[in-house]
């Protein structure tokens, strides 16, 4: 227990042990975040053959940055575990939401009627208009006026 208290920057009465040390940690975090931003902008300029690599790199760096912010700026590293648990649960459920949505969309066959016999042609659907009583009638081109 005693070793654990040394890691926490507060003592029992809530005083900070080492405010200057804390400030140094925050500055290092900021520098790391800015360097990661520079890296992600530079990586976006490289065109990989597979465009998915760019997305993976960008989102991985974003997640590292988000972790740094949560751990150091939002004090999760010294906080009660329950707060970290709530934060992790939020991201976990977002992850489930994302994952299942994408599994659904990417594994779905193109929608076609099951009793389809002939291939669907791209012929335009017949254009209909409504007459004065509300019934659909095929639109006929207006007869050319006689010269």
């Amino acid at each position, binding site marked *: 227990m005693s070793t654990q208290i040394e890691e926490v920057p507060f003592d029992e009465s*809530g*005083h*900070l042990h080492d*405010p200057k040390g*804390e*400030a140094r940690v*925050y*500055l290092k*975090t*900021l520098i790391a*975040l*800015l360097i990661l*931003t520079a890296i*992600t*902008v530079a990586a*976006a300029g490289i065109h990989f053959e597979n*465009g998915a690599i*760019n*997305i993976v790199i*960008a*989102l991985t*760096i*974003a997640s590292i*940055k*988000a972790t740094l*912010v*949560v751990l*150091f*700026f*939002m004090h999760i590293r010294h*906080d*009660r575990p*329950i*707060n970290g648990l*709530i*934060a992790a*649960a*939020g*991201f976990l*459920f*977002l992850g489930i*939401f*994302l994952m299942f*949505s*994408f599994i659904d*969309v*990417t594994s779905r066959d193109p929608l076609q009627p099951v009793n389809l016999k002939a291939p669907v042609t791209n012929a335009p659907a017949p254009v209909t208009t409504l007459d004065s009583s509300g019934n659909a009638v095929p639109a006929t081109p207006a007869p050319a006026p006689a010269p």
Partner: protein
Amino acid sequence: MEQQFDTVKIGMWLFLATEVLLFGGLFVGFGLMQQRYPREFVEAHEYLQRSLGALNTTVLLFSSWTMVMGVLAAKTNNKKRLVFFLILTIICAFIFLGVKYFEYSHKYEEGLLPGHFYSHKGDSIPGSHGYATFFSFYFMMTGLHGIHILVGIGLLAWIAIRANRGEFSEAYYTPVDLVGLYWHLVDLIWIYLFPLYYLIS
């Protein structure tokens, strides 16, 4: 007192988790539409200026640092530093919104607007709904994030006024801490918005 502080913090974290899920729904929608209109989305990305996005990212990251330094100042009973860092954070928020205003007005002039307001000419797939969909998501997500920045400015100003009255000390700085958490979450959301909108191409 300590127990109260813990309870308040749990409540704040629960609120932040709902915020993550609020934006999460929009992120999922954006991802699904990107699957549906891949070519249009890549083309629409090109209309966003990467340098402005990077500038705003830097400004917000810096403001997160000034915020955490403010919380540290409150913990160490340094009223002057607390007010100084809070004002610095507010200035950063206004710089962010200024850049955003410049970007929005540029989009407005080019007709790069959401839904049926979209009137941009010269797209490579004329008539596709993909472009308007992209800008619907762009304005919805950055707009909702911008509203969060505005709310944050209000909260920071309120905290700065109270700090100036000397209401906070190492014994009581809960509002400073909670507004700090909120401000970092706004930063966190931008950390994901920036690569998704400005970098992926």
